[in-house]
């Protein structure tokens, strides 16, 4: 707890004239956006560690099915436990890490700072969202430990609660961005991070409603015995195969409508963060910034229309796979614009290869590698040839899971000095980066191969009987997983050590960045900007300004003639007061 309290220790005289808050108001009911943002990050950290541990269990079980894993063995009926384990791993990683950390964590902390607001639009709502998220994490965890029937109900209710929290967070983000920007912070001047958080909030608002509706249907089926998905009434007089496909496809439609777009909900803020980091550490403006913003919008728009690509084999109208596969392929367009913008920014730049930048570059590499296999999955004809669990698992872990984690880590290295007034250790950070970077490629690239191999198998083979090559690949993946997970100890060590013992930074702007959060002390005081409202005079990415002493200009820096006019005016006013 002492960790997030740090934020408040240095608030000093800049805080608005509020009475000193009581203990509960400072801890459980603290509505400060920075406090809530940090707490989301802590929640994500705990969840990612737990989720990683679960994936380790799964890999070990796949290679040594006979091994008695203490955690799994205690619950009996291993096949169901294995499915529950996968579900638990997925829900932790997708909801609590990939959705919560880049958007609710960093977004809550830095969106108000970057647009020059003092607080989110609805702080109390924000607090409610946070505790609802905590409750949903508790529910998902508890669901793992109770009887599977009850567990599923509990899990569905927890997901519904998470949806509600995500919706309220998205509402808060949208209104904050629209209505609370500082003077002069016009839309074209907003940092790409803010754009990404904003577009992402709109997308979340549209898709989490769908998942909420699906969860309400499912809960009502389970608790009130309603008949939305229940097959009993009309299964009886239909041919078996047909009945199954139409029945399940209602749930599939609702679910994939959410879930495919959810990938972009996890990725959009990461796109923003990576563009921001690449520009800052290349000391160059984001190349084709407007096009990058449009591409972010495009990702949000197309991401909304491609859910059908998960349902090529579920009895859709024969034309719709063609439409969906065209739409899904057209996602390549905004993705290409983003990638081009990143490379254009890096071109001919004086790149500063620190850990934050390494993670941003790692993101680009993973995104490209995972994106290429996505092209196979978007084509309805190729899917038939390549789809199998391992191929898909490899694809989405590279492009969504690991890539987003890299962006989160990059953001953490970048903003750590602002949040804690200390720096993470660079040597440990770089070592951690290289080990993880090599590790994830060793884990997920062979998975694509395994997936293709599973398909070459002559028909009807049992999933367990795989070729010796496949078996050794699996073992390789498992060892790579163990090593990659072990490498995360380096990060934890670095993180915990730097929190208390890291190199202190007195400089409020150690990266020489341009956005508003770097113009205030670290950590920013309550109310963020002291007594004077911030005024924004320029766009975000003004680097390498010719003829200036520094190679960057803060967004709050007034243009020179204006500065002089201001000083003259103040002097005149002072003299009129004195006389």
């Amino acid at each position: 707890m002492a960790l997030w309290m740090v934020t408040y220790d240095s608030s000093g005289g800049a805080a608005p004239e509020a009475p000193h808050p009581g203990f509960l108001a400072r801890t459980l009911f603290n509505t400060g956006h920075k406090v809530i943002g940090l707490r989301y990050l802590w929640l994500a950290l705990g969840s990612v560690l737990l989720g990683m541990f679960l994936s380790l269990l799964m890999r070990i079980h796949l290679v040594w099915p006979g091994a008695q894993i203490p955690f799994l063995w205690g619950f009996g009926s291993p096949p169901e436990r294995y499915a529950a384990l996968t579900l638990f791993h997925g829900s932790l990683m997708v909801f609590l890490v990939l959705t919560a950390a880049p958007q609710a964590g960093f977004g809550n902390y830095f969106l108000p700072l970057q647009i020059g607001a003092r607080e989110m639009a609805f702080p109390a709502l924000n607090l409610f969202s946070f505790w609802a998220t905590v409750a949903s994490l508790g529910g998902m965890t508890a669901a793992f430990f109770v009887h599977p029937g009850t567990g599923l109900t509990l899990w569905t209710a927890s997901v519904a609660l998470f949806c509600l929290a995500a919706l309220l967070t998205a509402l808060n983000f949208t209104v904050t961005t629209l209505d609370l920007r500082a003077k002069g912070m016009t839309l074209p001047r907003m940092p790409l991070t803010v754009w990404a958080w904003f577009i992402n909030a709109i997308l979340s608002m549209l898709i989490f409603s769908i998942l909420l509706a699906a969860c309400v249907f499912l809960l009502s089926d389970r608790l009130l015995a309603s008949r939305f998905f229940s097959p009993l009434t009309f299964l009886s007089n239909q041919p078996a195969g047909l009945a199954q496909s139409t029945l399940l496809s209602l749930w599939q439609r609702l679910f994939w409508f959410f879930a495919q777009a959810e990938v972009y909900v996890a990725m959009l803020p990461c796109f923003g963060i990576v563009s921001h980091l690449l520009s800052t550490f290349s000391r160059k403006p984001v190349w084709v910034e407007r096009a990058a913003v449009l591409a972010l919008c495009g990702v949000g728009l197309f991401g909304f229309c491609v859910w059908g690509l998960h349902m090529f084999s579920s009895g859709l109208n024969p034309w719709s796979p063609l439409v969906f596969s065209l739409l899904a392929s057209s996602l390549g367009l905004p993705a290409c614009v983003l990638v081009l913008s990143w490379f254009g920014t890096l071109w001919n730049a004086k790149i500063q290869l620190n850990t934050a930048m390494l993670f941003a570059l790692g993101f680009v590499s993973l995104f490209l590698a995972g994106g290429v296999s996505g092209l196979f999955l978007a084509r309805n004809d190729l899917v038939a040839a390549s789809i199998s669990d391992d191929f898909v698992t490899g694809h989405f872990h590279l492009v969504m899971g690991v890539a987003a984690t890299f962006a989160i880590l990059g953001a953490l290295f970048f903003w750590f000095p602002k949040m804690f007034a200390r720096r993470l250790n660079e040597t440990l950070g770089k070592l951690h980066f290289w080990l993880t970077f090599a590790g994830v490629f060793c884990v997920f690239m062979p998975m694509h191969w395994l997936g293709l191999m599973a398909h070459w198998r002559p028909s009807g083979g049992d999933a367990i009987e795989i070729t010796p090559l496949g078996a050794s690949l699996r073992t390789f993946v498992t060892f790579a997983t163990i090593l990659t997970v072990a490498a995360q100890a380096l990060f934890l060590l670095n993180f915990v050590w730097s929190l208390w013992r890291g190199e202190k930074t007195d400089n409020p702007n150690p990266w020489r960045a341009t956005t508003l959060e770097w113009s205030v002390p670290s950590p920013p005081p309550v109310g963020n900007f002291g007594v004077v409202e911030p005024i924004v005079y320029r766009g975000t990415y003004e680097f390498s300004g010719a003829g200036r002493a520094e190679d960057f200009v803060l967004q709050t820096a007034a243009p020179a003639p204006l500065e002089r006019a201001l000083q003259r005016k103040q002097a005149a006013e002072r003299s009129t007061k004195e006389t």
Partner: protein
Amino acid sequence: MPGTSIVEDIELIIEDIGGGGGKNPPPGGDDGDEGGKRRGPQVPSSRRYATAIVVAIVSIVMFFMAMASAFIYTRANSNRWVPLDLPAIVWVNTLVLLLSSGAMELSRRRLSLGDVRQFRKLWFAATALGFLFLAGQLVAWRQFILAGFYVSTNQASSFFYIFTGLHGLHLLGGICALLYVSFRKFEKAKVSRTVAAEVASYYWHFMDGLWIFLLALLYLGK
């Protein structure tokens, strides 16, 4: 105040120079109708409430669209669809809800004329009609149950209960907002009564439209 004049000067100069962002940047986030009013720390801009309710309505529309598309999809694909006779009282309820919206508009007109007493009376009438609608919906449920249609009877009845139930739940939220406008002492509040009444009315009329949409869906889809 010496501070304001400087700020205003800067604003003028910003508009001249334009900064680095664009050639001719539009004004920033919170000018527009309020100008420089929101200067001091923590002074809320009331526009955020109107924005929030519009955004929330979009989100709720998506929620009910998911439900409506599930209804249409199930209706089209089910070969055992049992048509549903809506209880007659739902038509009365619809009328009650429409009257409530009308009363609310009348009361807001009184408020804009500065007549707070009349406003309170009419606003109270709108709230009471809202309660009456909810009671009517419960009667509809009761009639449905007496006729032997439960949530689990068939798909159509499941949809009837979930549509009316969820709409009722959202409407209950609206009633809370209406009560807030009635009983809040606005001298101390962050929002003015006009803004609160306006925001509550957006939501209330939306509830109205939503109900008519759901009713049409249930009626035409039977």
